[in-house]
């Protein structure tokens, strides 16, 4: 190394440049053993050399991260030009030097503009690519907060841009949103979920906790989408899957394609194909493929053994076998901000769902009332489909449920799920089988009707219309 500050007449480099070139070759892994020794010796002896390495390395990595913004450039290289600075802008230089290219670009702009204006504005998968690194939040429902990389916090809306380093927090179980990547990959987050985007283009997602569903477009083999949870790392190249993560374990269910799950504690990996599931569990257990844990398409609850502990509201009622009643559940009184409610509610089964549905799925329940008045049924759902809200509430309301009424008379109602209308966005859109019901609620407001339900059950197949049958007076 030239330590005298002289300039080398061949390369035109001085001593500082000489050290820089040594560094560049170190990072290129082309240093000979003797040069490596020299580099170690220089770095060991002088803090200024270490400072230069630190500056160079962090600067070079930052350029690596900036990458995508410059990917669209193409260039004809004049290899004889050794000049470095250039005050003319890139576009200026090429507009004049390469008229044919400019004409081609003009044509491309015209074609692209045409395609853009043909695109529906709310279609995130076909938005113009204004910033290769930006992700968009869509289908925002409820309370979604964005913690920006500079630590500022803002409320997110549909269309909000998410930058690399931002954290998205889904506030509660009635909230959800979809993170949409430039290539159309969608990561849907529902209730009590927190994620942070990372990686050069946001293709690494840290899932702090919660439930996400992902529909991942095919990714390059060497640049998979990576999800990191407290317990596992998932490498994804194009698939549909759901993952539930908390501090204890990571539970992966793959619907299509393949996901590689690596347990962080011991580095063990397993490829999880479509139709299979894997759970990180304890290090003592080998990672194995499990069958998907899906909700049944038919479901029944008769309360004969009381009210299951995971039901969220309702009071158990003892049975009277002689009267044809083996036990049930009574509406429970709850005071809320906007009134007093009398409700019966199932468990909230976020991950698995209460039941899966088809176009002909029907809900049935046997019940009685002491007073005639309105009560309604609410169905909470989640969906990973782009044409459905991430979370939604559907309602069924009809006076024939309670009128005409004889107090204490047992009735059986049959309701096709398609008769439920969406109320979370006031659209009354019919329920769709794309959506997974995760909670069912029966409720009256400000008036205790003494609603008792003897049995609730779900069937596939049925009359396709609402029906209520009254039994003999009790």
């Amino acid at each position, binding site marked *: 190394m030239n330590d005298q500050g002289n300039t080398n007449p061949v*390369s035109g*480099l001085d001593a*500082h*440049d000489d050290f*820089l*070139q040594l560094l*560049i070759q*170190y*990072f*290129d*892994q*082309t240093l000979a053993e003797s040069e*490596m020794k020299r580099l*170690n010796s220089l*770095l*060991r002896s002088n803090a200024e050399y*270490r400072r230069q*390495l*630190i*500056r*160079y*390395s*962090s*600067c*070079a*990595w*930052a*350029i*690596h*991260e*900036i*990458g995508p913004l*410059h990917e669209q*450039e193409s*260039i004809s*290289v*004049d*290899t004889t*030009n*050794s000049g*470095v*600075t*250039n005050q003319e802008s*890139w576009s200026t230089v090429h507009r004049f030097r390469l008229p044919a290219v400019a004409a081609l670009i003009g044509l491309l702009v015209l074609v692209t503009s045409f395609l853009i204006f043909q695109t529906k504005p709310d279609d995130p998968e076909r938005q113009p690519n204004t910033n290769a690194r930006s992700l968009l939040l869509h289908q925002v429902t409820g309370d979604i907060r964005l*913690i920006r*990389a500079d630590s500022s916090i803002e409320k997110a809306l549909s269309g909000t841009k998410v930058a690399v*380093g931002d*954290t998205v927090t889904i506030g509660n179980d009635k909230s959800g949103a979809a993170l949409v990547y430039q290539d159309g990959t969608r990561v849907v987050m529902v209730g009590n979920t*927190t994620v*942070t*985007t990372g*990686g050069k283009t946001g293709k*690494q997602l*840290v899932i*702090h906790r919660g439930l996400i569903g992902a529909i991942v477009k095919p990714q390059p083999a060497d640049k998979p989408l*990576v999800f*990191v949870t407290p*317990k596992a*790392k998932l490498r994804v190249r194009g698939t549909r899957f759901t993952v539930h993560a908390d501090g204890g374990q990571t539970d992966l269910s793959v619907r299509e394609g393949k996901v590689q799950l690596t347990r*962080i504690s011991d580095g063990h990996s397993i490829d999880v194909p479509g139709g299979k599931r894997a759970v990180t569990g304890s290090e003592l257990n080998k990672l194995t493929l499990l069958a998907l844990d899906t909700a049944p398409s038919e479901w029944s609850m008769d309360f004969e053994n009381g009210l299951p502990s995971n039901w969220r509201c309702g009071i158990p009622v003892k049975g009277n076998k002689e009267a044809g009643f083996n036990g049930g559940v009574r509406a429970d009184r709850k005071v809320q901000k906007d009134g007093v409610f009398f409700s019966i509610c199932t468990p909230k089964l976020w991950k698995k769902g209460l039941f899966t549905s088809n176009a002909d799925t029907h809900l049935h329940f046997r019940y009685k009332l002491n007073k005639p008045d309105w009560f309604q049924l609410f169905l909470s759902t989640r969906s990973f489909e782009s044409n459905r809200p991430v979370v939604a509430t559907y309602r069924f309301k009809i006076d024939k449920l309670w009128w005409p009424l004889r107090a204490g008379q047992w009735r059986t109602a049959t309701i096709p799920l398609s008769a439920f209308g969406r109320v979370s966005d006031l659209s009354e859109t019919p329920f769709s089988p794309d959506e997974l019901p995760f909670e069912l609620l029966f409720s009256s407001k400000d008036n205790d009707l003494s609603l008792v339900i003897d049995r609730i059950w779900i069937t596939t197949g049925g009359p396709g219309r609402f029906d209520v049958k009254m039994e003999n007076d009790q």
Partner: protein
Amino acid sequence: MDCSLIVNWLVRDRARLLGFIWTIVRDYTLCEDIFQEVVTLAMQKAESIENEQHLDGWARKTAKFKSLEALRNRTYQSACLDQDVIASLEEQWPNDAIERDEIEYLQACLEELTPRARHIVRLRYMEGLTGNQVADKLKVKVHSIYVALTRSYKTLESCIRRKKREAGAIG
């Protein structure tokens, strides 16, 4: 420390930590893997991490350990910096690594390079080609690529310093 704050901090300042990892392993993909490991370990140890300063030191120490471990596990092992040199760099890193505002200047400074210089910088650092691969692609000797990269880096450094001075003068 809160787990969300930890991840936020690590991701926000990832270029500083990744630059350190890159110094040891010099492989972009391996760097990302190690960074992910550090993030997940930090999430697991969130309760024992007291504040940002503690996290900064812990993350670099863990990154060093994981980087050296990764190098040991590789079939092909190229010469690496000596451990005492890495330890000195670890200590000095927080004072000298590029700051977030400097990264913004850097982005603007890239525009000041000539198209040729910018193209070489892009091939080497953004696309991750080696010096030899860049030379093959451009049909020049590898030495001229090293010279071009050296000059480009010097230009960028002085541009960053200038922009920082200008911002300071305005501020």
